[in-house]
């Protein structure tokens, strides 16, 4: 059993740009450069037109809770230390068919101490970023709309 939280491999040519942007605290979505369709998770070919040409489209990071889970121990040690925590599936404001999993974080950017009572389906959320290691920044979901948008 691993002691640390599992981290994504961030140097795959398929999705490297997503992680480079995340390190710069920008959320981008893989889009087809030929037909414009967004897709997530990233894959080599556009399922609509089969083009391999890709653009990484910046999005606002505004979203709504599509669903969520509240995993309870026993868990991997790194997540056991975090519990209680919530993982949210957020649907993007620009395209509600693009749904991304992320840890829920509170107004202090903290992922621990969050329970089901703090979250509801449909509730507004916005993107935040957790520096997980030197080369990995994980997008996460901050509860509530962005302060400027509120």
């Amino acid at each position, binding site marked *: 059993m*691993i002691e*640390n939280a*599992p981290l*994504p491999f961030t140097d795959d040519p398929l999705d490297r740009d997503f992680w480079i942007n995340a390190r710069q605290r920008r959320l981008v979505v893989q889009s087809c450069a030929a037909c414009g369709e967004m897709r*997530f998770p990233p894959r080599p070919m556009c399922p609509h037109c089969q083009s391999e040409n890709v653009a990484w489209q910046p999005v606002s990071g505004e979203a709504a809770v599509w669903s969520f889970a*509240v995993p309870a121990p026993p868990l991997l040690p790194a997540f056991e230390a*975090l519990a209680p925590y919530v993982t949210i599936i957020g649907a993007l404001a620009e395209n509600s068919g693009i*749904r991304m999993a992320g840890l829920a974080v509170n107004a202090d950017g903290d992922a621990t101490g969050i329970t089901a009572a703090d979250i509801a389906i449909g509730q507004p959320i916005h993107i935040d970023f957790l520096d997980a290691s030197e080369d990995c920044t994980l997008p996460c979901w901050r509860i509530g709309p962005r302060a400027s948008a509120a």
Partner: protein
Amino acid sequence: MLKDRTAIVGIGETPFSKHLEASEFQLACRAIKAALDDAGIPPSEVDALSCYTYEETPEFEIARSLGMGDVHYLSQSPHGGGAGCGAVGHLALAIAAGIANVGVVWRSRKRGARSKRLWAGVQSTVTDHWKWSRPQGLLRPVDEVAVLTRRYMHEYGLTRAQLAEVALSMRAYAQGNPRALMGGRALSLDEYLGARMISDPLCLYDNCLESDGAIALVLVRADRAADGPQPPVHIHAFSQGMKAQHQLMTDYHSADPLRSSSWSCAANLWRQSDIGPGDIDVAQLYDAFAPLVLFSLEAYGFCERGEAGDLAARGELRPGGSLPVNTSGGSLSEVYLHGMNLMTEAVKQLRGSAHTQIAGAKTCLVTSCDTTPNGALILRN
């Protein structure tokens, strides 16, 4: 054509337990030998082998231990709980097509020990599609199903008391099955509602057992099956299913995520079948997690979308209900072997020899995991 051309003529099971001393290899050999003895067929006649990609006992070891001769067909079916019906269906196709004559499918698994649990093997660096969910805290299959269940509750108003009926009805069936791990341990609604959460909204009793054991089946062509010692159970229809834009377990990304790959499987299964959902006497629906049973009831056409909670709450899954489901106790209360016990229970029901026998059962639907690429079989006697 596949329809009724092959039959299951032998079943074999080891004891089921939280801990068995024997290795997976030893258990596999015992289950296969028991299934061949049940069929009255010597190992030397086996010429087709089919298993799960997750199976860790290699086919060459199985064949040279049991003393099989020349084998002409080898197949594996993917994705754990999604694989069972595929493994049987592939074997049936090979036999119906005349490639082989006697087929064995098996699953041997020791999961009782904590160190064996799948999520304990999560890698520190995630390179595949799991990189979009595991670092974000969805570590275990139960977490992935919890997300879909909460969304389903939101869309259709399913309550925990309705969902409880899946676990309660299967626990009740287990009380009639001396082989069931949860025999002698009745479960009440209060106990269910008071149980600890594993991944909210799913509690302890919504999760399958972690257990050790092995199961095997023997298939032959229908003409030969008629001469065997056991009543043959015919494979009437088979399909696998993987919907457009499916993603394994974290199936959150298609246009309608609650319309699972089971819907794709069901449509193609019924298309091939003379037996419709209304003609099914008993069903064995894959139940690693309780909500998968409700999702499958809707996908296979036993009720409309969003109505499965009501169907269960009316007691329809129990003996005497319109569709008795997982009559051995299933993965929740008999044993968890990636759904293979659902297959042997289907055979027992159609032989008329089940512990909780559904009177006059002539047809049985068996399904594999709703949230993976999957499969289903319609069996008849």
